[in-house]
């Protein structure tokens, strides 16, 4: 009898302990802007999440682990890719070094819950910026890092060269994506029928297409290019020229901490700005003695831009030195896949990449 009593008492003790923990969490989360950290740099930027991340010593970043070039795990077990490097850039901004990141693989269909629940501090995982996601996911999107459009990959043996010839086709598509919605819209608009074959991860989707379960696979052009190289016989598939949507892809964070969202936003912009000004990972140190006031301010040699954000004065220099500027990231991961800069070139070169002024 004594043992049952003991069990009850421990049980209740546990529940109470849990409750006090939950209370602690909930009171913390009710105050979106905490007090400035004691001993930290005083200033207007007060991101609770930033201090949480700094206290934790690690940034938690949701990424794709199945999209070579954008986000996947290499032979050494290390996360690598275009999207992955934006996590590293933010880590460099926050910690001064790029590798203080814990990568969490997130499926397309789980992105929303990962953002809403605070499971990840930020998501950098080929995610299209849409109005619904902005509001219903409770998300804030960082600047677009890749301007994409939805396309189709087909087996060349099927002789399909346009959507109009896809009536009755089986089409592989990822669940919970804008691609899934655009696909239904495109076929509805043309009064065509299709059978969606829907999976919740890239590997299953492209495996099904590769084996012939589907006649067509649809996704963002970038994904198609990335996965085409991994098919059993890449030459027997072709990516159509027809593009049916705009897919601005970029990192996102929860809108519960707008100051943190600003930090991510400006980190991304710093990458583009660095390319605009010709600052690279190779030459960034040579700019220490620059007399150009704009660059001096950008690299923290003048003014208080870093301090405003709650970051170190030389945060941009650390970011560029760690991952390079936007163009370097692009060339490192996407050039080998054969992706052209196109829309993703700087605005000065006919593209859409444009940084907000650092002043």
């Amino acid at each position, binding site marked *: 009898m004594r043992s049952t009593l003991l069990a009850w008492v421990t049980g209740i003790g546990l529940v109470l302990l849990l409750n006090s923990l939950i209370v602690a969490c909930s009171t913390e989360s009710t105050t979106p802007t905490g007090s400035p950290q004691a001993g930290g740099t005083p200033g207007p930027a007060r991101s609770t999440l930033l201090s949480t991340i700094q206290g934790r010593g690690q940034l938690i970043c949701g990424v794709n682990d199945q999209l070579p070039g954008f986000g996947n795990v290499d032979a050494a077990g290390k996360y690598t890719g275009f999207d992955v490097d934006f996590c590293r850039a933010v880590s460099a901004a926050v910690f001064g070094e790029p590798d203080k990141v814990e990568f969490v693989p997130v499926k397309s269909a789980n992105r929303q819950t990962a953002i*809403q629940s605070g499971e990840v501090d930020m998501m950098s995982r080929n995610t299209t910026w849409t109005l619904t*996601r902005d509001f219903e996911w409770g998300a804030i999107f960082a600047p677009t890092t890749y301007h994409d459009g939805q396309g189709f990959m087909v087996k060349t043996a099927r002789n399909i060269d346009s959507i109009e010839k896809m009536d009755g086709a089986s089409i592989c598509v990822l669940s919970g994506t804008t691609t899934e*919605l655009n696909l239904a819209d495109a076929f509805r608009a043309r009064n065509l029928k299709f059978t*969606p074959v829907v999976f919740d991860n890239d590997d299953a989707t492209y495996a099904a297409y590769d084996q012939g379960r589907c*006649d067509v696979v649809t996704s963002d052009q970038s994904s198609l290019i990335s996965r085409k190289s991994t098919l059993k016989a890449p030459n027997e598939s072709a990516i159509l020229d027809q593009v049916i949507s705009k897919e601005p892809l970029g990192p996102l964070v929860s809108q519960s901490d707008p100051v943190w969202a600003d930090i991510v936003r400006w980190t991304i912009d710093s990458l583009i700005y660095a390319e605009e000004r010709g600052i690279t990972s190779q030459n960034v140190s040579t700019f220490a003695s620059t007399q150009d006031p704009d660059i001096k301010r950008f690299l923290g040699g003048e003014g208080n831009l870093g301090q405003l954000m709650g970051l170190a004065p030389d945060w941009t220099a650390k970011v560029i030195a760690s991952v390079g500027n936007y163009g370097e990231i692009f060339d490192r991961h996407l050039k080998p896949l054969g992706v052209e800069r196109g829309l993703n070139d700087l605005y000065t070169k006919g593209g859409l990449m444009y940084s907000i002024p650092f002043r």
Partner: protein
Amino acid sequence: MTSLRDHHDQTRPPFWRDERIIRIVLQALFLVAVAVGLSILYRNMVIGLAKAGLDLGFDFLKNSANFGISEGIPYTPADSYFKAFIVGLVNTIWVSVVSIVLSTIMGFALGVARLSSNWLARQLASGLTEIFRNIPVLLIIIYWYQAVFLGLPQVESGFSLFNMAYFSQRGLAYPQPDVILLPTLVLMVLVGWGSWKLLQRWRPDLNERWAGVISLVGALLVAGLVWAFSGRDPFALDVPKMVGFNLQGGGQISAEFLGILLGLVAYTGTYIAEIVRGGFQAVPKGQREAARSIGLSEMNAFRLVIAPIALRSIIPSLNTQYQTLIKNSSLATAVGYPDLFGVGSIIVNQSGKTVEVFTMIMLSYLALNLLVSLGMNWLNERVKLVER
């Protein structure tokens, strides 16, 4: 212990040491703790949602879903989220019901085979059971889908049976009879059998062969009338044909459905086999001997004595297996079968309504499992020992 209790009865301890009172107080405290815990979780959720600028509400269910679903009851992307949810729910019920029926059949066959005196049957059954029982069900499902079904020939070169039924990596396509075939057949049997009976009563002198012919003509007349008045051929077959890229028409069972179905059946069937074996082994040897000694044949002893006793221990465990199967059916997502969980997750993602949709999904699974429980308890009552 008894001496202690006697002592209690004589002099009652103060209430803070009275075991009965302590128990009640602890229960009450526990309930309060649970209630407080739940309310804090709820409060936390509401605060979290408000902070992210989100609110709770089910109005979105009326909105157009805008995504496609590959199979199930008729649905188009223009239908509402609610309709999409129902499609998923019906698909879950459909795959669960078929799996339950097939795994029960497989389980009983394997279980009995393992007890059989035939060496080969026994070894085969135990081999199968041990293989499928010890592999995670998700692996079995993915194995069936990716290795077996996706490994089949492509749709244009699939196996064909007299150019009527086709089996390819897209699944099974078979000729489907017209919808009015079944009602017509029932009507024909009723008319034929009825006229045969009536003829026998009214004209007992009539030659049996003639009575048969007249009944047959009556039945055929029904078919002719249906044909003439409904404008449809009740015996017409809708045969699948290759149109464009896919087989169209006829009945179609997708590879995704077959993958999840066979996965669930192989896994649950072997568990049921063990339950069946245990149930039969639990029947005391004396029961069979007694049944045989009162002159029942081996078959009758099994049917009338052993099986009813075994069922008493089998049915409660079957209930658990059926419920596990229903929950496991949510693994359908792995092979792209649009079940409740799969479609639900898409709705969550496309509408952004996490809390609402997951609540709906949980309640649906709960309701399905309670229904199964109810049915099985009813069955259990029926086979329970009748105590006099």
